[in-house]
């Protein structure tokens, strides 16, 4: 029985790029959702403060992802080896993002998005460390 064909390097790079872009788009959905909540919630005090903090954290995480997952970094062999894990995290973050528009507990749902965004960045940073 023949083995499954090994994906070519450019296919892996293309998949990684897509995973990065999809993760960024999911983070943006979370940012938009939190800002929507800030604009329309009747609640004030600690809840509003947590929303503002979450907004900042998500924006910072998106910036960290953009900075970490550059084309040069995605082309590193060590990062390519982590492609399966990165794709998996990207798919999970997208699933969470799909729930966001209708989510009642915005803080909990965006916490999951934020956590997965951090996982994505950590995977890249750790793979990059192995290469140096």
């Amino acid at each position, binding site marked *: 029985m023949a083995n499954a064909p090994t994906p070519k390097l450019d296919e892996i790079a293309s998949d990684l790029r897509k995973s990065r872009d999809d993760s960024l788009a999911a983070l943006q959905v979370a940012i938009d959702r939190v800002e*929507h909540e800030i604009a329309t*919630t009747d609640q004030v005090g600690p809840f509003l403060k947590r929303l503002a903090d979450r*907004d900042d954290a998500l*924006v910072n995480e998106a910036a960290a992802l953009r900075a970490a997952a550059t*084309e040069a970094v995605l082309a590193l062999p060590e990062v390519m080896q982590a492609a399966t894990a990165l794709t998996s995290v990207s798919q999970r973050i997208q699933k969470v993002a799909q729930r966001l528009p209708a989510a009642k507990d915005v803080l909990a749902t965006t916490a999951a998005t934020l956590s997965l965004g951090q996982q994505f960045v950590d995977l890249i940073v750790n793979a990059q460390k192995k290469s140096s």
Partner: protein
Amino acid sequence: MKATHRTSTSPHPCHTRLAAAVLASVALVSCSPYPHSDSSQMLSTEMDSLGTSYSAANKRIAAEQRLNHRLEWSFTRPELDFGPGCEVNAAGSVVCDLIQKGSVSLAADASTPIAAAAKSAEDICRVQIPGVGTPTRNTIKALKPLQRDDVIVSLKTYTAALVAVTRAQDRADFDTAAGKASAAVGGLVQSAALASGAGAAPLAGALAEASVDVVLWVIGQALDYQRLEELRAATERACEPVHALAIALGFILEEQRGNELQELRKQLAWNIRTVNQLRGQGNAQSYGAAIDAAEASADAFQNIRVTDPDALANALRDAHDKLVLAVRNNTGESDALIVSLTTFAKYVGQLEIATANVSASAAAGKKP
């Protein structure tokens, strides 16, 4: 035609007009002062008028809708929300505005993509410059802030140098202008090499200067011919660096655009919140002022959202390509050259304004 032009020693009557036209272009005056503009120039002017009229009507409609909303909301005090055009990744033609929470929106139209400018497929550059390659996101990210500023400064200096060459009235003027053009091309090469990740390129700069000088003083005899040859040498050498810098500018402006949209949307969220808080307790004046502030944020967001940095950068590249061809194929007819140089100067001006606007907004922070 070309031979006649080369041997002519009398000043070309078009050069005074050329100088005036280029000066006007730097001030971004849109109408041409030339009675003999060709048909393409006329078509372009008519299209501009049509576009201006359409745009003015759209602005009037938007202002009327705003006023109606303000009057209605002052009485009904509904809960307000982001409109469908206020998403950072929205790509449609729906403008960012406030809407009543839960109201039916024009969200369907928000999926309509804004047409991207087509990239020029043909590479017309004949002179390959060592060290100047294709910039990437990584090489541009590695640029220091001052090096980023140098990208636009080098283009401005280059445009001004071309203008100086066309304006030169006598030998002394021309000597100075030729020196400026040579240095400006060196500056372009330097910036393009840095943006391509090749680091500083002193050799490329020096080569550009020497080459321009040789063309200028060995071959040139009459001032008019020298003027044309100077423009030819400068634009041919600048061709590849301008392509590289256009790519770099597209990346830089796109990154700035994303950062600014993020900040402006956050501002808008807090301003909408203020309106919603005041709807139950604020007096008519404070409530109205809060609506105005939120709508001002929506306008600022919209103004940035509709910008297309890539299209602007591509337009700059295409305008320079046309200038290169106009000078390369020039046989003494200066109108095509005037139009090309005017168009190129216009895009350099627009890029400078775009960069300055984004920098000013970033410096203003979160202030609406």
